[in-house]
């Protein structure tokens, strides 16, 4: 696994101007393909990008963070990167309204990647909402290393499940859970987890999604002594480690709490180390 508390910015991070190659609506999300050039070579599953939103006279002064969904450094455009964007507030809405050809100012790659096991293992990938975005690229990579990849996706409703056809190819199994039962099984991604682990189907869990989901998975993983790498999501003002807004409480080596920056020591973290019950609590 990757070292967790490096306290160092991704050494490949740079500011680039990307061009929108396509922008398609997929369910409640937008799939945005960007031409980003050379930088793609250093992007790994789990990394994210930080995007300037709103144009030159925007009232929005902070970048927005988006997970890198998939990358390609071949093809007619050179390096391309795909983002899956949920319309949330004004920044994401601006982004999904960008037409083909628009220029996007982004900093990439940022943060830690998912750690890739050196031996083939049985990996369970769990995604919540747009949290599935980086998991398909991860699945491909794991598969290419001989891992077996199972995937569970969950969301409140069908339109919030992101599971592209191409992506499904890289997984051995895919289960979908929705809270309203509008697609897949009615329930939550954590429902089948204990059983799968008991059945010996899981060596390592990779997850990405809402913090509550990550916390719940962490509890189960810890109880069952399964390694759990999760990509967290805290409000970030800078994305490059200089503002200290994105911190999470971590169990330090000495047993004390440490507040680490999730933009450089994350987003991918060891779920066991995060003190989930203390996130957002006064110290």
């Amino acid at each position, binding site marked *: 696994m990757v070292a967790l508390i490096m306290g*160092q910015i991704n050494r490949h991070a740079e500011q680039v101007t990307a061009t929108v190659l396509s922008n398609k609506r997929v369910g409640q999300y937008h799939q945005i393909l960007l031409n980003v050039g050379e930088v793609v070579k250093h992007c790994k599953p789990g990394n994210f990008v930080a995007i300037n939103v709103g144009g030159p006279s925007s009232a929005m002064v902070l970048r927005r963070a988006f997970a890198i969904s998939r990358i390609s450094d071949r093809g007619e455009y050179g390096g391309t990167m795909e983002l899956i964007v949920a319309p949330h507030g004004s920044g994401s809405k601006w982004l999904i309204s960008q037409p083909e050809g628009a220029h996007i100012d982004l900093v990439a790659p940022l943060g830690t990647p998912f750690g890739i096991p050196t031996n083939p293992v049985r990996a369970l990938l769990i995604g919540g909402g747009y949290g599935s975005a980086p998991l398909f690229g991860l699945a491909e990579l794991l598969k290419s290393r001989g891992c077996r990849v199972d995937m569970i996706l969950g969301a409140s409703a069908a339109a919030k499940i992101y599971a592209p056809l191409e992506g499904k190819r890289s997984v051995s199994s895919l289960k979908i859970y929705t809270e309203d039962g509008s697609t897949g099984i009615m329930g939550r991604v954590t429902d089948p987890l204990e059983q799968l682990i008991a059945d010996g189907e899981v060596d390592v869990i990779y997850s990405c999604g809402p913090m509550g989901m990550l916390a719940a998975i962490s509890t189960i993983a810890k109880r069952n002594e399964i390694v759990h790498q999760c990509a967290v999501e805290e409000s970030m003002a800078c994305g*490059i480690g200089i503002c200290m807004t994105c911190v999470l*409480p971590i169990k330090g080596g000495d047993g004390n709490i440490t507040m680490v920056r999730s933009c450089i020591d994350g987003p991918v973290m060891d779920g066991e180390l995060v003190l989930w019950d203390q996130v957002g609590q006064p*110290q």
Partner: protein
Amino acid sequence: MSVELDFSTSFGNAWFPLPVFTASGCASSGRELSQFFPLNEIGGVVTKSIMIKPRLGRPTPRMAETPSGMLNSIGLQGPGIDAFLANDIPWLVSTGARVIVSIAGETVEEYAVLARKLRSVTGLSAVEVNISCPNVENRGQVFACHPESARAVIEGVRRTLGGDLPIIAKLSPDVTDIAAIAREVVDAGADGLALINTLLGMVINTSTMRPHLGGKTGGLSGPAIRPVAVRAIYQVHEALPHIPILGMGGVRNGSDAFEMVLAGASGISVGTASFSDPLATVRIQRELAQLLVEKGFTSLRQAIGFAHRDDEVNGE
């Protein structure tokens, strides 16, 4: 640039070849930004305010974006002065960066202790004293808000630090009369002033219907506050024309920096702008140089406070 421009500036006996700095708390200890540009290509790095002990800071969420600004409530998270001096400063000095260490305390005594620790550190250019901190000995009121407590902190630091390292006192705009506070701290031994720290603000989360920030209130920074910063710089320069001012608050480009120089700033700190543009500090410095040349200045010094040039004539 083909035209010669003397772009240097001074704060007390500290001379800087370049006038644009990072802002405290907006560059950590410089390491991350050094990936985007060499730290010795700007005026200097002002480090995040350091306290005596390690601190975890305030609960998250620690930030909220606001129109043309943001609120932060970091709560001075940091490793404490000893770890800071052991790990961060040597690295920073080794990059060739000019270093201004920002210190923060909860009592007058704590500031003095911090100053004592800095005395023997080599490679520092100046100390910025962040007095916009709650004074635990006086109902948590911020030192910078009262002339007496502001003065007491600076006097303590001056005494302990000895005469060499220049002191830049960083003031809060949340006061009735910022020029009066400025006079006190200068009188107490500050060589320069940093203007302005953030404004106290709050955002209510309309979903939870509670204050959005973990720390309830936060500091407002970014372009939204620039008119307040320019006004504060202008007023203080008018009151104390010979005291160098490190101007900050919403500087996003060379023209914003130029505004502050004209109002009376001898140097500029760039804070929030680095969050959206990691290269902001160098870019702004370059743009400021261009503007000065375009306007026919041959030195930064000529432009400092230039907007006041009618004052003597017209009275006002």
